[in-house]
């Protein structure tokens, strides 16, 4: 008996010693201090979360401002942020969010429900860029000093994801109203960093927010870094050279034709991270010849995706089986359309192709897409089609696409949130404001299924519904999907905890330097 007790006692002591040691180990593992220099291909245009925005700004804003609910460490899930917890009513129409106590803005003022209501009203304004994500919301109200109530007009299962949008960041109402223009230069938010200096077109320098609420592995407040320099370096060769000679600690968007070289660099790691991006050929279902489903299927059968994967993407990515990126409810059950020139030829004949020349549009200066277009042209010509490649500057090309003045356009799409609803609806719902993202695609069954998926909170049911939509839309040959393109970045081995999350950015609050 004594032995058994001694054994248990010994076991307890051992486990607590180990447990203590592991806590101490992780606290000692993390090193505080240092400056991280990150080279980005996009420039930040503003720090105002509410203005129409671009990735250059969004990714920077996420280091400084925080929403109520936030993307988790991988980007595919959600976790509490400024809202510590929330409850949903049985009918799904009322959400009560409890604000995290003790949170202060970077200027020391406490976070209040009024700040939350102000921010939410700004983002949900129908005129605002992400107003559509809050279309189902009836009102934002204060329940008490620490609780915010969101009342919906109808059930909306993607609300939590919508609340995690960068545009739904909670800002200091007083500071924003005092001078919105200055706020765009030096925001007052609750995030891990604050802006020390912002030189447009050059760089942004971030320093820690002394009042930040999250704690690190060592029990002290995050972030670990002393300083972050986000440099705007649009030329991809400069980014790679800078990584090699140590000017930059991390660089984004390594051109795929240099990825192998970056892999072999001393002291450097190549990161290939999953993304919510799909490269595909937009098709205009409202114009000949792609108003005919057989023609659209034919060009899918005639698309040599293996060749494209090799020549354009150097093997990085995955051949897609969907019309939209791999967001959370992606189905692996939809079978890919194979490369089959004979089938393509048969379909072209069956559709009675009348020789209408096809203009395959590409952005000028985009070499990978130009190569993809060339490979596609070869396959499509083999199938009996007349194809010419035309190049326009990206703004012009996009404008023509929006006006419906195109037949096929090699481009891509990304999802801003980790919920299928945003893109599934934008791309496939023909009754929406963008004509199914400029494809003029209309399928009533799909519209019905999407509405159902939007309103039910049952994850399994949503997965089934989005899977069905994916199957129908993909096999309607909505587009010619090319690649689930991952993020390909490079960073020095001294940079720890670096990770590009699926929704697009990186959490610099957890990054530390082993120098």
């Amino acid at each position: 008996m004594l032995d058994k007790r001694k054994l248990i006692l010994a076991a307890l002591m051992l486990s607590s010693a180990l447990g203590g040691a592991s806590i101490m180990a992780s606290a000692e593992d993390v090193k505080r201090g240092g400056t991280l220099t990150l080279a980005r291909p996009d420039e930040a245009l503003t720090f105002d979360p509410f203005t129409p925005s671009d990735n250059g700004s969004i990714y920077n804003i996420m280091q400084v401002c925080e929403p109520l609910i936030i993307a988790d460490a991988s980007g595919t899930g959600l976790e509490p942020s400024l809202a510590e917890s929330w409850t949903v009513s049985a009918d799904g129409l009322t959400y009560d969010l409890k604000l995290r106590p003790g949170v202060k803005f970077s200027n020391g003022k406490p976070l209040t429900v009024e700040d939350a209501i102000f921010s939410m009203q700004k983002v949900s304004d129908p005129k605002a860029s992400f107003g559509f994500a809050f279309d189902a919301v009836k009102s934002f109200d204060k329940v008490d000093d620490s609780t915010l109530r969101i009342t919906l007009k109808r059930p909306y299962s993607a609300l939590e994801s919508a609340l995690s949008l960068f545009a739904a960041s909670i800002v200091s109402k007083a500071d924003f109203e005092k001078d919105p223009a200055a706020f765009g230069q030096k925001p007052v938010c609750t995030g891990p960093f604050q802006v020390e200096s912002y030189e447009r077109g050059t760089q942004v320098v971030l320093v820690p927010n002394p009042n930040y609420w999250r704690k690190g592995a060592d029990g002290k407040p995050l972030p670990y870094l002393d300083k972050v320099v986000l440099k705007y370096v649009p030329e991809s060769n400069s980014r790679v050279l800078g990584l090699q000679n140590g000017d930059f600690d991390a660089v984004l968007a390594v051109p795929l034709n240099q990825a192998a070289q970056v892999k072999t660099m001393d002291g450097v790691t190549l990161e290939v991270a999953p993304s919510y991006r799909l490269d595909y050929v937009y098709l205009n279902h409202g114009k000949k010849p792609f108003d005919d489903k057989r023609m659209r299927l034919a060009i899918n059968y005639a698309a040599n995706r293996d060749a494209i994967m090799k020549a354009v993407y150097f093997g990085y990515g995955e051949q897609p089986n969907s019309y939209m990126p791999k967001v959370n409810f992606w189905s692996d059950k939809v079978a890919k359309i194979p490369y089959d020139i004979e089938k393509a030829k048969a379909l072209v004949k069956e559709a009675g192709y009348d020789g209408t020349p096809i203009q395959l549009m590409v952005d000028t200066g985009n070499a990978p897409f130009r190569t993809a277009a060339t490979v596609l042209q070869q396959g499509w010509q083999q199938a009996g089609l007349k194809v010419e490649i035309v190049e326009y500057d990206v703004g012009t090309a996009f404008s023509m696409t929006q006006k419906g003045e195109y037949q096929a356009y090699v481009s891509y799409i990304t999802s801003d949130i980790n919920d299928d609803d945003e893109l599934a609806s934008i791309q496939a719902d023909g009754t929406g404001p963008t004509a199914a993202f400029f494809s003029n695609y209309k399928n009533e069954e799909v519209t019905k299924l999407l509405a159902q998926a939007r309103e039910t909170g049952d994850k399994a049911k949503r997965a089934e519904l989005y899977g069905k939509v994916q199957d129908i839309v993909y096999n309607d040959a909505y587009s010619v999907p090319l690649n689930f393109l991952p993020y390909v970045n490079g960073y020095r081995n001294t940079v720890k905890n670096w990770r590009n999350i699926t929704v697009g950015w990186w959490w610099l609050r957890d990054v530390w330097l082993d120098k």
Partner: protein
Amino acid sequence: MQILHYIVARCLHAVPVLIGVTIVVFLSIHLVPGDPIRIMMHGRIADSEVAKIYHDLGMDRPILLQYVVFLKNALAGDLGMSLIQKAPVTTLVVEKLWPTLMLLAFSTALSVLIAVPLSLLAAFRRNSWLDTAIRLGSIIGFAMPSYWIGLLLMLFFGLLLGWLPISGLGDTPLDRLRHLFMPSLTIAFFLAPILLQSLRSAMLDVLTSEHIEVARAKGLSEWRILTKHVLRNAMIPVITVLAVNISWLLSGAVVVEYVFGLPGLGSLLVRSVGYRDYPLIQGLAFVFGVLVIIVNLLADLSYMLIDRRVLRS
């Protein structure tokens, strides 16, 4: 007094030039398809919302009316607000003006430093193998694309030797010189050859003229001939070449600023055109126009200093 008259006359000349430049830019950029709001939003905005935004900004009024409003404000010193960067155009332009001016000044200085000695050598040893080698080398340098030269310099000085930083502008004045060396050298690769050719032929003209024969007969040393006569007379074509090529220099600066990540007017122009940021494009066209006019005015003024005969005419 004469100089003052001259300057005032030239300034008056400048006004129609500026109007011409800005009107052409205004009309052409508005004719190009694509609009800033839809481009920024990647199409994820309803047509009615876009229409409302443009109405609030006054951008749905007739083109010529918008131009007149722009001109009226510009002459009062207000170049408007950038649509994309949410800041006054004048602020943006002033922020980016100094890097571009520094780049142009440094490139010009480097080009002159390279071209003058080489052209002297070529002129004095004309038709020798040295002369031929210099002229051949300069044509090859001129023919190479700036983008490629820039990258080669980056690889060599930045990576291989590690002597120079490969992007950005730097902080302290000395640091700036280090950062600007490669970009300026890249521009010098196409400016120095132009200078060299003009200098060489100007020098040859002077060297074979009668007053040089007289100078030599008087017993003047080659060095005195060089500094007192040849160089002085050759400065006029140099200034002409530089002034005439300022516009090419500005466009060269666009490529170089992009490759080396310099925050100047060139890269600002590229981005603003890509975004269709109309007020910023207009403001930049106005500033470039003023820059070219000022450079040409300074060139004409310096002719007067070098050669008094110009004033009399």
